[in-house]
């Protein structure tokens, strides 16, 4: 019995549910329609807004170039979808092929795409987190609240965690001449994503811009006044900082709790899937009808030794959504692997930072063009004598060349001369990534080994 008949029926009159109505969910829905899906398409989102773009929330919005309600994503096409916005998914019944929603509704599906993304990790002490003036920044509502408070003219902003988001927030504060202190557990900003060599440059940028940067410290507590407004942050070195706004920027938590007990291979590290975006169940067996994309997915990457990567990157959400949507509608031989080369950008302290590949896998770095001291350079990361990643500071136009090196598993260090090579680029140096077992704010790429499920299984060979 050929499956073609089924696929034709699926395309004509099937039911597809997309849980997660942000960038990945939207782009997947557009691709489904582009590829001829004419059935019922239901979009479920826990926020009450149509899909919007998050990167501006920590950049253009905080710099007053735009407002959070102006960040809706443009559409590539009409979707003719049923939207369930402001309603979270609360459960999955894999046997009955149904998704439960917070309002009690149940949605049956023939194919399900999970793109529930991540949420900001809150300040762990609940009562301190509830103090007035303590913020996280992930959603439109977060941005609206923080933007208002920055416009009120705070005496000092205190940022917990110097990852990309925390650093961008600090940058926006300095550009608006607001006093800001940044506390980072690691040795430098961005150290988890780019290593200590580049992190040191990020630290200099912050200090030169007037940021009171404290590294190698943890925030031990936030203290409020009698009216419940945050007033003081206490640090592990015994010091304290007076601040009336605190932004907690400690990375993200994957939105997988709603799948607890469903049997899907979902856990705190995300949802494991195969190279074609099909989700694994907890037994490590791939499902037929459940696909994942975006920040919540963990997928094996052919370019990186089939390591499972979770990438919290805008470009990954788009690319993986398109691949998942394509694969949802076609025969297994027509499916495509998700082969996107990781890439991200950040603009902070007047510098445009861009990256390709997986720098955090690198053990060594070579400054192949420009100079760290000038804040204008290309850094190439090497792993086991091949090029594994690259970062540029105000050198974006060179990046496609390095992407090509990564895609072709070129040898490291590169055996050729490069434009604007300085003496400091004569040989590689240790990239100086922190020990992965010591938490920092968390890199935006997580390498999570080979286990497709969070439940360990032991293989016992038979006796002869």
């Amino acid at each position: 019995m050929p499956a073609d008949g089924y696929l034709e029926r699926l395309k004509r009159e099937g039911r597809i549910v997309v849980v997660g109505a942000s960038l990945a969910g939207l782009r997947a829905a557009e691709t489904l329609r582009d590829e001829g899906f004419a059935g019922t398409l239901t979009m479920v989102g826990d926020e009450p807004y149509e899909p919007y773009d998050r990167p501006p929330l920590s950049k253009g919005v905080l710099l007053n170039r735009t407002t959070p309600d102006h960040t809706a994503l443009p559409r590539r096409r009409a979707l003719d979808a049923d939207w369930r916005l402001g309603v979270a998914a609360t459960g999955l019944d894999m046997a009955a092929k149904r998704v439960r929603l917070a309002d009690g509704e149940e949605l049956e599906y023939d194919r399900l795409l999970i793109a529930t993304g991540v949420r900001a990790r809150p300040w762990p002490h609940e009562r301190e987190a509830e103090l007035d003036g303590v913020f996280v920044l992930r959603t439109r509502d977060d941005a609206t609240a923080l933007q208002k408070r920055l416009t009120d003219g705070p005496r000092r902003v205190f940022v917990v965690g110097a990852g990309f988001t925390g650093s961008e927030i600090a940058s926006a504060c300095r550009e608006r001449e607001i006093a800001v202190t940044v506390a980072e557990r690691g040795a430098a900003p961005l150290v988890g994503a780019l290593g200590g060599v580049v992190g040191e440059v990020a630290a200099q940028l912050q200090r030169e811009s007037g940021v009171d940067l404290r590294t190698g410290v943890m925030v031990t507590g936030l203290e409020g006044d009698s009216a419940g407004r945050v007033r003081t942050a206490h640090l592990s070195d015994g010091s304290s900082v007076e601040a009336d706004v605190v932004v907690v920027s400690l990375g993200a938590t994957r939105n997988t709790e709603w799948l607890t007990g469903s049997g899907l291979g979902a856990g705190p590290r995300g949802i494991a899937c195969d190279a074609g975006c099909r989700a694994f169940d907890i037994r490590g067996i791939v499902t037929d009808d459940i696909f994942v994309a975006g920040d919540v997915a963990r997928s094996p990457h052919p370019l990186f030794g089939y390591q499972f990567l979770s990438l919290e990157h805008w470009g990954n959400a788009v690319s993986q959504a398109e691949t998942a949507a394509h694969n949802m509608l076609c025969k297994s031989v027509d499916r495509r692997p998700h082969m996107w080369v990781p890439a991200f950008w950040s603009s902070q302290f007047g510098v445009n930072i861009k990256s390709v590949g997986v720098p955090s896998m690198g053990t060594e770095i070579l400054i192949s063009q420009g100079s760290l001291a000038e804040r204008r350079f290309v850094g190439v990361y090497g792993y086991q004598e091949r090029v594994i990643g690259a970062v540029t500071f105000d050198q974006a136009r060179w990046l496609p060349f390095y992407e090509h090196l990564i895609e072709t598993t070129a040898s490291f260090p590169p055996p050729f001369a490069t434009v604007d090579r300085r003496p400091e680029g004569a040989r590689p140096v240790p990239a100086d990534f922190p020990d992965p077992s010591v938490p920092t704010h968390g890199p935006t790429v997580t390498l999570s080994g080979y286990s497709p499920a969070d439940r360990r299984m032991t293989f016992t060979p038979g006796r002869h």
Partner: protein
Amino acid sequence: MRVVVDLNRCQGYAQCAFLAPDVFEIHGEEALLYKPRPDEAWRDDVVRAVTACPVQAILLDRSDEAVTAGEASDAR
């Protein structure tokens, strides 16, 4: 009118900032800042910027379909 720029693709050629300066600006050496919902008055400028971008990184709305909650699924 909704706009998004794929900043992985953007290489700071700044054609958009010349053609639609009210919408796109280069911030520092090569970072791009832009208004994701430009005033309708700038539409022609934005369309020119979309066309001129050497790396085709700018996406402008191709549909203004409204988001509506469908009928309850049991109606099907």
